[in-house]
């Protein structure tokens, strides 16, 4: 078992300014950052506020920044980090509630309304079923983890920008409208703080753990807005 130094962002509302606490953590290379954070909570500081749920990158609740890069803590291996200390911070461009827990309200508010939380996807029509499984239902790729918004340099400048997740979601609706009001959706995407605020940094796609490819979807959304194809990617 190795010992790694973890530098963790700490903040509590009534506890003065934010700071970093350093912990020596027993972590095998195959352990995840979430394992390490839970180890800190159990063995060092039970007040450390972290958020997690599924442990396998499908719920999107454990998003953090590890050594400056957005990541889901539950699938980010300690052994994959560079030598030296591991710095863990909350997602950028979100209000921080405490420590590594951010307020997701502003993230959800960016989406066009109505915003169904999950839909069974009909796309593609003939998914390849993994061996040993008779059938499975595929939901939307986006797990609304917020990593894309954290990585976005435009969102860092102006928090009225709706952000990559909301725009990617809009483009998915264009691909499979299923009765949605596409005209109103395009009006929303054409708004002052929407599709045209993207500057094609593609950091959202780099950060996305779930193959949503938000930047590409934003570009396809733009094509739809300029009267090109109807938004298919």
């Amino acid at each position, binding site marked *: 078992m190795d010992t790694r130094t973890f530098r963790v962002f700490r903040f509590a509302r009534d506890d003065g300014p934010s700071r970093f606490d350093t912990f020596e953590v027993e972590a095998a290379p195959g352990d995840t950052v979430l394992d390490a954070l839970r180890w800190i909570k159990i063995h060092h500081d039970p007040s450390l506020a972290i958020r997690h749920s599924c442990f396998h990158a499908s719920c999107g609740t454990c998003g953090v920044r590890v050594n400056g890069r957005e990541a889901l803590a539950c699938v980010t291996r300690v052994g994959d980090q560079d030598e030296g200390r591991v710095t863990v911070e909350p997602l950028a461009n979100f209000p921080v509630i405490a420590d590594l827990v951010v307020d997701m309200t502003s993230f959800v508010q960016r989406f066009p309304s109505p915003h169904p939380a999950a839909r069974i996807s009909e796309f593609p029509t003939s998914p390849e079923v993994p061996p040993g499984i008779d059938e499975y239902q595929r939901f939307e790729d986006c797990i609304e983890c917020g990593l894309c918004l954290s990585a976005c340099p435009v969102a860092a400048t102006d928090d009225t920008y709706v952000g990559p997740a909301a725009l990617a979601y809009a483009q998915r609706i264009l691909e499979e409208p299923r009765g949605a009001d596409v005209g109103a959706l395009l009006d929303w995407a*054409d708004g002052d703080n929407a599709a045209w605020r993207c500057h094609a940094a593609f950091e959202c796609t780099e950060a996305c753990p779930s193959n949503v490819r938000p930047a590409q979807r934003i570009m396809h959304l733009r094509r739809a807005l300029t*009267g090109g194809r109807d*938004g298919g990617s």
Partner: protein
Amino acid sequence: MASTASAREPGIHRSRTWRATATSGVALLVLVTVHMVAHHFVVEEVGGLRTYAQVLDYIANPVMFVIECVFLVIVTAHAMLGLRSVLFDFGLSASARRRLERGLLVLGIVTVAYGLTLIGVLASRA
């Protein structure tokens, strides 16, 4: 239900602005190349910089005169559109954005007017 996206009138103002920025930028790839080559890589002087007589000689050529005028207009348009994009990222209110757009339009017109005057005066001396 079929998508109505292709039947919808595109967001004229915003997509037109983006298209203008992109189109002027692509045009500038050619125009800047011509301009830079002409003023840094043609004459044998140090740095390729033209003397007074060489500048007048250059601008007296009607083809180069037109190219430089077009270059001025397009580079100013691209600059104003780019400034608009950068400044819009500062979270301005709608009224502030409208004032900014008017201001940039005026600045662009003044810039082009001055530049064209300058080119015209130099061409008249040739």
